[in-house]
């Protein structure tokens, strides 16, 4: 499990990577786990989650700038 975590991070030595990829090509469970975790990561990264809309951002920026200009 930890190795799969490191693999997702691109943080495994070349030979371990090779072994993992061999294992993944045989083991259905690990393959599903790896594939779905990778997809999870992509979904999280691409989803634009917790983006603050411009409309909400503008007044906050204005408040900050006002406090800075007139301390």
């Amino acid at each position, binding site marked *: 499990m930890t190795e799969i975590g490191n693999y997702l*991070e*691109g943080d495994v030595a070349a030979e371990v990577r*090779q072994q993992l990829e061999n294992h993944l090509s045989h083991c259905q469970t690990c393959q599903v786990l790896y594939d779905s975790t990778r997809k999870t990561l992509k*979904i999280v990264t691409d989803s634009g989650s917790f983006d*603050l809309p411009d409309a909400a951002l503008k007044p906050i920026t204005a408040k900050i*700038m006002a406090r800075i200009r007139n301390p």
Partner: protein
Amino acid sequence: MGYLRETELGLSFPSFAAVREQLGFVPNVLRAQTLLPRVIDAEARILATILFHDQALSRIQKERIALTVAVASRNQYCATLHDQMLSLLGAPEISPAETALLDFALKLGLHGPFISKEDVTGLFEHGWNDESVLEAVLVTALACFLCTLSTGVGAVPDFERKQIPAGNPLHFQVPEASSGPYLRAVELSPDRFAPFVFFRENFGFIPNLYRAQTLRPDVLGAEAGAIGAVLLTEDVLTRVQKERILLAVSAANLNTYCVAVHSEILRVIGVSTENSAQAAADHHLLNFASKLATRPSETGREDIELLRQHGFAEEQILEAVVMTALTNFLNTLQMGLGVNPDFAPDRVFRPTLFEKEHLLAADQRHTNEALVVDPDAEPVARVQAGDLDAFEVLINRHSQRVYRTLVGILGNPEEARDAMQDTFLKAFQHLGDFQGRSKFSTWVVSIASNTGLQRLRERKHTESLDDDGPESEESFRPRQIRAWTDDPEQLYVKSEMRSLVESSVMKLPGKYRVVLVLRDMEQLSTEEAAAALGLGIPALKARLLRGRLMLREALAPHFTGGVMGVPS
């Protein structure tokens, strides 16, 4: 993830398989280009012919050249990549002759217009022959190509980021106009040698640039392949658009040769180099390409976004990046080989004396100390000099990052907005102490992180982010092990996906949520995230994995292959 959309090509995509066989993995810079597989094919071939094997130069010598160019270019992605390669290959001492070769590569890679015949003669005096100098030029050009490409696509480092040391200013004399070519070439038949046949068919002649590389026919084959796959295709950007990029970037690189050749080619294919309506429409594209080629440290996600706003599609932006990188490759080759113009140039570009910071001392070349490339250095300096308006630039650039960090920690959007104000006010008050030892973005995220953690401690009934026992991987067993659909992101519209992710992330225990937000949403490095949270690296990694697995578990019911791809 990089700046551009990616698709899945699968482990069996032949070029990925070929690269993985050599490197043991597929670098993110290639994974970032999956929208255009033909381009990846061409690049894989270039990598294989130029970099992957011991030839006149050893693989280690080549990686050192590539690392030197990447470090001097302050390209985090490539420096990390080549550094990792070298650490796997093992690195014997650098001989004086190799030092000379690295100095040459450095000058060619960063200050190509200053290269003259004397630089190459100097290498011969160190015992290098034509074949090895040609390879040094090729590897330097490839390193420039990879630096431009990785910057343009926003490739995420494949390994833990290495920080790179700052360097000293370096002066070069403006060289006398010297004649080339600098290296020996052999005759190859323009009728039988396939790459030459290809160039004659497509350009109407065989440019001297290619005649100067005949010691490596295999490389010429790979270059012809790249020209065919990147420049001559019409399906994404037009040939004319790409020729214009080549002209604009070559002019920005002061490359008289490539400007002359491609002006001629544009005349031959019947396009005026005068301004036209199309040229006006491509204004943003060309600005982007020139900036990426010559000021990579200032180029970022905003530039890609600007192109999107002007109506360029993902594939078009990717192709513009690749075309810019290819132009840097060709320009570097020409300057290193001293190739003479095929046509009398209309205009000669000459360098003026200038100074640019980078590495010089040999002992600095392969250290792993800090270089921080900070795109915010300019507005930060303006604020420090009293220009308050510049702070608004910094707020605009980092508000989302700060907000997400705070939501991650506090788990409450309302409170996060409030804490965001505190964060920027604190950042403003302490900006005088900020000395640029880390990036501004990292610094402001750590202020956000401290602000958020402080508020959490002040809450009456606390949701603690503190460790409540060892992170045992055994304590969490995945239960959902049904395969997911191939393209889960297609199942929901963007806003649904977003609220699904937001609600699932919010349900994670705080200590996992914050790590996931910093690493996977903010894309902080492991070290940066650990520092921002005051955690050790092993603890951070354990929480990250756990957080990802928990999130996977929460999302799984929505993405396991329901009937006809409909989520259950």
